[in-house]
């Protein structure tokens, strides 16, 4: 899979997803101060290459679990923008009818079986989903995504140990932004994640700010899982541009962000322009189309009804 030629179709598909996530979240930033989205948001801006590079390999019935930073994975996996926007607006047309908010997204038709905001626990869910696929001999991928902060939790070790012991064909993806909330990595994790994980399984390294790097490494890791029946881990160092939570730019002194050099969108666009895979006019047109999609999603959300009190104690 890594040897795929960068065709116009592939490069445009990747750029489209990167831009959808970026522009969608930039719209959140502009809307958020008006207090119509009353839900904590953890923005993916700057890290878009990880969900896009991984999810490009996944089909709708393949499943993926992730943590509190949800929007990028959901959009990359195929969730409709309006369904996500309406959820952020707390409306019944949202993916969870306004009961989930930003942190609890669900879209079974696109392999999103729910998401959790508690760091670490969802790593085990991906292992369980992969175990189900193995027991039923299904052609189905299961992916567990998590950050470096989650690697501090016991459930991470329990999960990689179990997956390795029992040959559970799960892809672990560590989206390593070297931050756990406002702690830098050397203050929260003593050992190197890759070095430790390599005792349990094969590990692939990718540049988490480069979608082509992530996509290629994810493809190799998945091919290994298919051939061996064993789990694999994909490690993607990335840069978090925004604060852990909310819509402000991060300003931690140990998290300098180079919005030119570390930008997954800019990196891909430069490659595409150089290879003649797209023109600046083509990029502008794509940007405009996505803005139109987001406009429609906002209108849809605003016109949708709120949940009623009668719905409160149902599904319990």
């Amino acid at each position: 899979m890594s040897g795929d030629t960068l065709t116009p179709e592939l490069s445009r598909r990747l750029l489209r997803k990167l831009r959808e996530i970026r522009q969608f979240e930039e719209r959140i930033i502009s809307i958020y101060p008006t207090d119509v989205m009353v839900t904590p948001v953890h923005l993916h801006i700057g890290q878009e290459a990880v969900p896009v590079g991984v999810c490009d390999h996944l089909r709708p019935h393949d499943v993926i679990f992730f943590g509190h930073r949800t929007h990028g994975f959901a959009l990359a996996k195929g969730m409709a923008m309006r369904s996500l926007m309406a959820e952020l607006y707390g409306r019944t047309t949202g993916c969870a009818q306004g009961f989930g908010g930003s942190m609890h997204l669900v879209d079974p038709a696109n392999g999103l079986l729910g998401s959790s905001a508690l760091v670490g626990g969802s790593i085990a869910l991906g292992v369980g989903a992969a175990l189900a696929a193995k027991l039923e001999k299904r052609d189905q991928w299961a992916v567990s995504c998590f950050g470096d902060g989650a690697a501090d939790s016991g459930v991470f070790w329990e999960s990689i140990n179990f997956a390795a012991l029992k040959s559970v064909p799960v892809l672990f993806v560590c989206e390593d932004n070297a931050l756990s909330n406002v702690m830098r990595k050397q203050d929260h994790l003593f050992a190197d994640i890759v070095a430790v994980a390599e005792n349990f399984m094969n590990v692939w390294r990718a540049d988490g700010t480069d979608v082509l790097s992530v996509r290629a490494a994810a493809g190799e890791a998945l091919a290994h899982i298919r051939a061996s029946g064993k789990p694999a881990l994909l490690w993607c160092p990335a840069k978090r541009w925004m604060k852990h939570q909310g819509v402000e730019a991060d300003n931690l002194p140990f998290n300098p962000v180079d919005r030119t050099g570390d930008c997954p969108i800019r990196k891909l666009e430069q490659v595409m322009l150089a290879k003649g895979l797209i023109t600046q006019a083509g990029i502008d047109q794509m940007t405009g189309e996505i803005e139109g999609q987001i406009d429609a999603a906002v209108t849809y959300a605003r016109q949708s009804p709120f949940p009623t009190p009668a719905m409160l104690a149902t599904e319990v």
Partner: protein
Amino acid sequence: MPWSRFDQSQAAPDGSGRILTFKDAIREAIDQAMINDSRVFAIGLDADDKFGVFGSMFNLTHPERVIGTPISENAITGVALGAALNGLRPICIHLRVDFMVLAMDQIVNYIAKWRYMTRGQVKVPIVLRAVIGRGWGCGAQHSQSLGGFFAHIPGLKVVMPSNPYDAKGLFLAAVKDDWPVIFIEHRWLYKNTGPVPEEMYVLPLGKGRVVLPGSQLTVVATSLAVVDAFNAISGHSLDAELIDPRCLKPLDEELILASVRKTGRLLVVDYDFPACGFAAEVCAVVAEKAAHHLQRPVQRMTFPESPMPASGVLEKVYYPDPDTIAARIKSILNET
């Protein structure tokens, strides 16, 4: 839909002549569930050991769907949940409820809330077997019940069977259910025997039964406490109505309320901690909905507000038994 044929009638067949132990009734339910539905699998510490889980996993028809695990309760419970979300029907086994507490993140934050958070778009058909026990100096960390602890959390069903017949029917109902069910088994019941039909049957979750009819006092008890209360009442020929709700949640409130309206008195025997517990919940339900029928204040018999001691001398004081239950019932009946 392999489980649909059980939808027609929730009435279980009469106990045939066949006698089975409580443990073997659960073993048979697990075996039949796995034969009936290839999505059912078992996972947990010692689950695949031939004599594991106190013999309840012995000689199963589908050992390839029994997965023994390292002692990693939190992740294993999460693995079971992930498999359930992805279409299987796991039976997740915890050898002692005290160890299940390590999985409270998965149970309270994930399993209990998943259907609510996803608006039921994703079902959570998972059974968590929690084995409880006591005595033999097991002490504070191997003797807890914690049923009320789980029942406190919205989204969980909690089952506590007291006899082999109920154990099989309730277990199959739990596996069939598209909601998470905590199935709490008292080890002291494992060798008890009773009639158990060979065919598959389900008992409805949330329907209790009147174990002994009576007119002067309503005694509500679960699990091992049902057996002890039965021996107390029948052994001393006391005029008390014994009710086994079978499930802490959903609770068969109507059965309890109807009895209290008749007897005017309530004693709840709950082998668990007292504060904010199941006994307190039953008392609250009666106080809210049948207070004007009460002739005497409601009463509870529970563990003391203390962890369990190890010394047998103290254990005898700590745990209620048929004698202390009989004494309490007599004192209530003599108040009039």
